[in-house]
């Protein structure tokens, strides 16, 4: 092998403060013989030791930026204009050996799926050690250094973890290993592309804490890419907002989020329920329209078609990036008018009628579900008792594996529960399986799935998809069918021209509207919403949430709303049930559950969520992994991770009952409510 000649950087004297400099970058992808611009005139700078955030919705070009920096663009992609400098060197001008050197020493990347970043056939220890071996360190020393590095990313037992294969690690643990590998070479730039999107909230919090901690220790600049504004706000010094391939606003993170100077940033921030906003405080302010398709040529400002204050000049010529303050730029002619942007959605929308209390529509008693045969059985639900009131929204919260979805599927009859479980609808017992339920009972309950791509038959037209429940469940035909179809289409804000299209011709938001129309077609009284917006972009999510709230007000339906996003659950729910390992930990009115005193697990979930508002919640962190449901801990199932475990040992030995601690507020915890109140309010004090 030939020796690698390092073209050394011009030295610290030339550009001492710059790790990355990108200027007027254009990247295009060639699709079916046509070049489509994915990035247009993107310029930004990342200083030494600075953490720079790139935020944007899907298709905005966030990942393309990262790929262009390291020249990992797909074969059909190329940098068509502009320049890139990393530590003073130009990756675009490098030959293969130099590029390898750059990737090995200067730049590391961490991706969304840790499972895909690790080689499944090689033990973890060898994979981490390989980074050192590539740098010329001998095998034994490399293994030692790998162990030290794993300890650095807070893996408590690195010796044992090194012996494992990647599939034996949990998602959070695997992401730590990937981060360890990324920082092992002491790169000058660390790129994190949605590093926590695939992780649960409590694990995400741990990983973010870890990255924040490492930053102070290492001499590394960070490029942090995420669709999650709150994560960026927490992790970054400066932020750039990408929209459809253009960097439309840039500046110090706090300033951009507190005082945005581009209508898109304003709109994006308004889409998110904040500061305890609830549906009865008014609707979210959705951004109208859709993201432009990639590569679409627009004469004027790329955001003008969706902008509430766009003027003629916005449509005629694309604005330059204006300086709008120290270190701040905005690509908007009207950047001084963003402070009082008009709402896109009126606030005063109909409110759901208040539910008549103490009149449950569904009662679930002692519902359990065990998957698998004897010996290898996993208890997904353990004796859950739950009543859902007529017309309310019951939020179901919990990490993955907590049994949220199983509970919903049992209610719908898609999965039969274990013997001894009973479900009553209006006081009448329901069959355990769909086939044992009458058509009239089927009509009462429907579901909106998480992913409309999966939930809509892709060979059927929108007309067919929406009319089928009208025919089958509502028994309509002829003129009545046509009338109700139009009606339904209006109420989910679809248009007649959509009727002849098939799902893949629609955007994600439109598809979810079709799925919602389908669920409401039969006139159900209960609709299960299983993460209905988590596959959608932020700007589309708000419109779907508003739609769900409107439909509830109009049709008086009861929602069982499942989500991992506590902000959404808080916005939409009247009551909340918190699940952990198939058991209800806490159940009560949404405001009580959020404001506290709450169960230690709820407390941990809440403090795990990064907040856009910069309010400091009680910072309790869960340590350790979620225990396996195949082998749940004795006593209180949460005791292995509980930061408030009692020293008396009762938590380890006895499972606490779900008891009413105040009117309508139930909790499964040995700690008396007064003591919880004191503990939790103490920590909230500054």
């Amino acid at each position: 092998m030939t020796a690698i000649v390092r073209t050394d950087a011009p030295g610290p004297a030339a550009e001492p403060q710059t790790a990355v400099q990108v200027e007027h970058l254009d990247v295009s992808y060639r699709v079916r013989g046509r070049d489509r611009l994915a990035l247009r005139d993107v310029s930004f700078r990342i200083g030494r030791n600075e953490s720079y955030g790139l935020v944007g919705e899907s298709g905005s070009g966030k990942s393309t930026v990262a790929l262009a920096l390291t020249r990992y663009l797909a074969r059909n992609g190329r940098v068509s204009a502009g320049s890139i400098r990393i530590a003073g060197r130009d990756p675009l001008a490098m030959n293969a050996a130099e590029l390898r050197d750059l990737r090995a020493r200067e730049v590391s990347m961490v991706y969304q799926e840790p499972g895909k970043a690790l080689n499944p056939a090689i033990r973890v220890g060898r994979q981490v050690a390989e980074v050192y071996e590539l740098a010329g360190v001998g095998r034994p020393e490399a293994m030692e250094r790998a162990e030290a590095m794993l300890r650095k990313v807070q893996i408590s037992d690195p010796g044992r973890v090194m012996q494992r294969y990647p599939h034996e690690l949990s998602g959070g643990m695997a992401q730590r290993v990937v981060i360890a590998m990324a920082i092992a070479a002491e790169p000058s730039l660390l790129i994190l592309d949605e590093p926590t999107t695939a992780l649960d909230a409590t694990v995400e919090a741990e990983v973010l804490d870890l990255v924040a901690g490492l930053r102070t220790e290492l001499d590394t600049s960070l490029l942090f890419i995420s669709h999650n504004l709150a994560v960026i706000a927490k992790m970054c010094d400066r932020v750039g907002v990408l929209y459809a391939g253009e960097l439309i606003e840039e500046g110090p993170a706090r300033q951009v989020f507190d005082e945005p100077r581009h209508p898109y940033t304003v709109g994006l921030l308004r889409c998110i329920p904040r500061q305890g906003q609830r549906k009865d405080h008014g609707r979210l302010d959705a951004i109208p329209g859709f993201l432009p398709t990639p590569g679409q040529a627009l004469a004027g400002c790329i955001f003008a078609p969706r902008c509430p204050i766009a003027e003629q000049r916005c449509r005629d010529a694309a604005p330059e990036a204006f300086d709008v303050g120290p270190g701040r730029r905005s690509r908007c002619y009207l950047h001084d008018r963003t402070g009082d942007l008009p709402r896109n959605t009126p606030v005063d929308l109909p409110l759901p009628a208040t539910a008549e209390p103490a009149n449950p529509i569904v009662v679930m008693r002692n519902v359990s579900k065990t998957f698998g045969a004897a010996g290898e059985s996993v208890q997904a639900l353990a004796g859950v008792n739950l009543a859902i009131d007529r017309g309310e929204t019951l939020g179901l919260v919990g990490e993955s594996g907590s049994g949220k979805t199983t509970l919903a599927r049992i209610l719908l009859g898609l999965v039969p529960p274990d013997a001894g479980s009973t479900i009553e609808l209006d006081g009448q017992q329901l069959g355990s399986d769909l086939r044992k339920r009458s058509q009239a009972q089927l009509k009462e309950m429907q579901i909106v799935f998480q992913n409309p791509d999966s939930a809509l038959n892709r060979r059927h037209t929108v007309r067919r998809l929406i009319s089928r429940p009208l025919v089958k469940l509502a028994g309509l035909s002829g003129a009545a069918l046509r009338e109700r179809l139009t009606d339904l289409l209006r109420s989910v804000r679809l248009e007649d021209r959509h009727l002849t299209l098939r799902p893949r011709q629609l955007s994600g938001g439109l598809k979810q509207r079709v799925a919602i129309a389908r669920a409401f077609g039969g006139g159900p009284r209960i609709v299960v919403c299983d993460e209905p917006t988590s596959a959608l972009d932020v700007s589309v999510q708000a419109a779907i949430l508003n739609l769900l709230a409107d439909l509830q007000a109009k049709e008086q339906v009861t929602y069982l709303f499942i989500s991992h996003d506590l902000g959404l659950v808080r916005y939409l729910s009247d009551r909340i049930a918190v699940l952990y390992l198939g058991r209800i930990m806490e159940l009560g009115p949404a405001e009580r559950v959020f404001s506290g005193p709450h169960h230690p697990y709820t407390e941990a979930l809440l403090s795990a969520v990064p907040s856009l508002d910069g309010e400091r919640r009680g910072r309790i962190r869960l340590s350790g992994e979620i225990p396996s449901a195949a082998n749940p801990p004795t006593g209180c199932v949460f005791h292995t991770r509980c930061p408030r475990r009692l020293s008396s040992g009762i938590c380890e030995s006895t499972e606490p009952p779900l008891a009413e601690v105040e009117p309508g507020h139930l909790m499964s915890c040995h700690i008396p409510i007064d003591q919880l109140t004191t503990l939790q309010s103490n920590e909230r004090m500054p």
Partner: protein
Amino acid sequence: MSDTLVMPAGVVPSTAEQREQPVWRLLLGRPTFVIGAAMLLFWIICAIFGTAIAPHNALAQQLLATNKPPSAAHWFGTDQLGRDVFSRVIVGARSILIIAPLATLVGTVLGTALGLALGYLPGIVDTLVSRVVEAVLALPAIIIILLFAVALGVSTLTQILIIGFIFTPLIARTVRSAVQVEGQLDYVPAARLLGERPGRMMFVEILPNVMPTVLVEFTVRLGYAIFTVAALAFLGFGVQLSTPNWGTDIKAGYVLLGAGYWWETLFPALAIASLIIAIGLVADSTEQVLAG
């Protein structure tokens, strides 16, 4: 009703709705498809108009001009009875292009129905039938076909049915796994929640989504069917002296290979090969286009 609700979902003329390219446009853009389809079209024309376009009578014997090498009068030479090989290759396309597609169609229809049932209906039926299918697959297909051919006698109809039945479990197995993949998608429980019956679930909800698999399976099996029909004729089954047949001609010609009369074997063999290649090209490009 919803007049009071102002929501700006469709304000912008939706750029998110994409026009779809029709499948045939995409196919015509692929050279492999165009070449395969052209070759296939040639053989279909031969099958339909065989006697009309052949330069000589394929059955006429010229006992004074046997085993003549290719020449201007006889492009592919003549066989041991002095018949024009070129004309026999053209006319011989008919029987194979009747039996093979019909047999494949029988196998595809039955196999798809069986595969849908196995993939959708859970449990014991699937386990039992799948084991039987695997047992059938363990034997070489040609052996089973020969056994049936001896037992039932060989006519055009029995050839179609035998090959069709042999293909049924093969196609069923492929369709079954495609159906099981579909079963993981949420539109299946969504339809069950409307109270749809199993028949409608299988044929209206799931079948359209596995049609690409079925189509690809049909084209792939068609190649095998042509090979099988030719092989049967070569082995002496299904021979009707009144119609030229590639397999029979190869059988008659190959004993003379040692004498140097290569043209009597080569040209019918090339005909079989080109037909199978044509179908393979069409199958591949169709699969790629349907897979997106």
